[in-house]
């Protein structure tokens, strides 16, 4: 027994040591933090059913959307030289230089705002930039060129990336894309084969079903007839005729299935042409009809 015990202890410790060597903190995985994403459920039809547009419609653009993109064009060329320098100068050096300049500015102003005087003394540079009011006053004085440009230069100088311009682009595209829902807006450019935001209504589908059912003799006598569901894909021409031959989509091990399938196909062929709203041809061009004996047999 002692031999066995020692052998066993040795074996176990060997396995443990091997484990320590083979898996020395082998897979220290740091859990990656995944920020929760807000998920919104949107019916796909909102995206896929585009409203049909009219080619004659005028292109509508949002005026507000255009402003940011056009505004910089006017201003950019003028202040390009000055503002860049001004911008740099302002923050760092000039305790002395701006002080003399704003004084004339402050003098005519006191009536509306008493503040500017004390404020102008310590750090006047920032204030005139922020307030639109000083503009008319500045037109007389020389330093006036400073306050006006810095505002726009901030927008104009970085031509490469400007969030406002991006939004302007997006806004420009939107009206041409069209939407499904609202029709109280004037017709606009839209997708060429978009739908008139219409779909086969339930009653129209029922009508089609009723037309087919009239011609269909369900496989009443077969064993397990209730399970003989047949799915048939039918291509319809615009006139309501069946185009091509209907295609049976499913199969079944029931020996009577072949008969049921052919009876379903026969029913489809015999009842043509179907009277369906021509305006919605897109939605019934290809129809899948379920022949379910259970419904017919009063299930």
């Amino acid at each position, binding site marked *: *027994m002692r*031999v*066995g*015990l020692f*052998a*066993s*202890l040795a*074996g*176990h410790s060997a396995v*443990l040591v091997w*484990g*320590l060597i083979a*898996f*020395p*903190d*082998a*897979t*220290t*995985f*740091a*859990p*990656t*933090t*995944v*920020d*929760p994403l807000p998920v919104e459920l949107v019916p796909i039809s909102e995206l896929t059913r585009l409203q049909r547009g009219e080619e004659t419609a005028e292109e509508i653009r949002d005026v507000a959307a255009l402003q940011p993109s056009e505004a910089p064009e006017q201003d950019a060329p003028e202040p390009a030289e000055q503002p860049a320098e001004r911008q740099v100068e302002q923050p760092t050096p000039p305790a002395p230089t701006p002080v003399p300049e704003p004084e004339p500015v402050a003098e005519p102003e006191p009536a509306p705002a008493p503040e500017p005087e004390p404020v102008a003394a310590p750090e006047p540079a920032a204030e005139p930039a922020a307030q639109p009011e000083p503009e008319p006053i500045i037109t007389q004085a020389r330093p006036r060129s400073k306050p006006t440009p810095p505002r726009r230069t901030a927008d104009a100088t970085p031509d490469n990336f400007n969030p406002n311009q991006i939004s302007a682009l997006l806004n420009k595209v939107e009206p041409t894309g069209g939407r499904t829902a609202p029709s109280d807006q004037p017709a606009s450019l839209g997708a060429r084969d978009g739908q008139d935001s219409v779909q086969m209504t339930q009653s129209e589908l029922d009508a089609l079903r009723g037309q087919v059912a009239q011609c269909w003799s369900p496989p009443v006598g077969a064993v397990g007839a209730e399970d003989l569901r047949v799915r048939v894909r039918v291509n319809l021409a615009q006139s309501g005729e069946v185009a091509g031959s209907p295609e049976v989509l499913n199969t079944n091990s029931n020996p009577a299935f072949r008969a049921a399938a052919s009876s379903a196909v026969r029913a489809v062929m015999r009842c043509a042409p179907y009277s369906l709203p021509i305006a919605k041809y897109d939605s019934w061009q290809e129809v899948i009809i379920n022949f379910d004996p259970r419904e017919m047999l009063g299930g």
Partner: protein
Amino acid sequence: MEQLVQSTLAAPEGDLSFFALFWQAHLVVQLVMVGLMFASVWCWAIIVDKMLLYARIRRQMNRFETVFWSGQSLEDLYGTLQNRKNSSMAALFVAAMREWKRSHEGARPAVASLQQRIDRVMDVTIQREAERLESRLLVLASVGSAAPFIGLFGTVWGIMTAFQAIANAESTNLAVVAPGIAEALFATALGLLAAIPAVIAYNKFAGDVGKAVARMEGFADEFSAILSRQIDQGL
């Protein structure tokens, strides 16, 4: 949102080394793991011991049978084996021969029911030998059947604590759930590690014991037949 980020940051980093899994676990789970470890050690001790024992027994039986059927005089054989510490067939032979000798000692040999006495002595010896062979095999059987449950208990307990951690973290992020469950499953792994060899070894050893006992019984019958013939010829 902020809560969630905090909780995921606070989630323990998964360290899957053996000791990390052990030390992170709850006390109960640790006890289970230690117990299973001991069970495994003990099982393997028994397995090694029994393997050596059965190999030795088989070897002894083979050697004894060759000697026994070599035509050597039984008296001589008894003489050499008498003072040794015998096992299995040799013990059987010595027990039967001792009974034979004792019955023939003295002025009046007690031969009348000698046959029965020899049979009984050999039966007792077989039983004693079988007992020696089978000893501790039940430990294997019970470890084999109970260890998975013990490991499962540890796992359930670990998962309970893991769920509490999830509830505290207020997040079902896998990173929060996984480490607790991993260390809980380690207990089941240990249970299976102990149980599988135990079950396999128990089945094999039970078969070995059965074979050895059958072999001894066969020898006992043959030897009993030989002695019975001797008795009848002596009458």
